[in-house]
């Protein structure tokens, strides 16, 4: 079985994750999964009712059942389609050469 791959839309990453929803808050679609601190542009997740979306500490999780799909749209990027599976959605990271450690990207 091939290793699942990630998706990047600008400064967010969408990664396959095990379906764990404990301590998470269910949210309804459409939902803003990331917002540019400087530009104000939003990454908006849109999904049909059968797709479960959760949030914990600013990180979003989408459980997409077989036969369904979700979409993330952004003003400056092409939309991405999320296939069936469980996905984690949050910011990509960059390296901080002063602190010598990773940090979340802000745009």
């Amino acid at each position, binding site marked *: 079985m091939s290793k699942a791959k*990630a998706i990047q839309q600008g400064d967010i990453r969408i*990664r396959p994750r095990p379906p764990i929803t404990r301590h998470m808050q269910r949210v309804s679609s459409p939902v803003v999964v990331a917002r540019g601190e400087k530009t104000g542009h939003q990454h908006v997740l849109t999904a049909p009712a059968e797709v479960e979306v959760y949030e914990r500490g600013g990180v979003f999780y989408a459980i997409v059942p077989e036969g369904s799909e979700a979409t993330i749209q952004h003003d400056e990027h092409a939309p991405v389609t999320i296939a069936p599976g469980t996905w984690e959605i949050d910011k990509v*990271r960059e*390296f901080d050469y002063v602190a010598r450690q990773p940090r979340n990207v802000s*745009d």
Partner: protein
Amino acid sequence: MSVVRLSESDRMFIVATFLVQLLGIVATITMGPEFGPLFGIALTLMALVVGTVGWCTRNERNGIPARQEPARTESVKAIDSWEGYEIIQITQPGQSPHCYLRMENPTTGETHIEAVPPNRQTVREALQWRNGDNLDTEVLT
């Protein structure tokens, strides 16, 4: 009690600044009320410029970049590229190389740069690191 030790160039700089200021005062006294003050002001401004340049130079010698501009950069080179992504390695004097992922938004064409660890020297490695868990990236928009 801490003692500040001045280098030879620091001492020369202080003496030069003092002499220029002194010349300004002497000129003000000796050249009369018409030209003396103007000459004095000109010399004082010169001392200010000398002081600023000297300060910048000293900071640069101490490892504090006085100006952040490419002119101070020893080398900038692209070490890998793939599908509109590039790894740029920047080496500055006295520092270990820094690597940056340069990317072009495929939708808008805008260029964006993010720092990646220095050991990520290919676009694939940098994108995997950016993902956080070394996964390959299937879709990039």
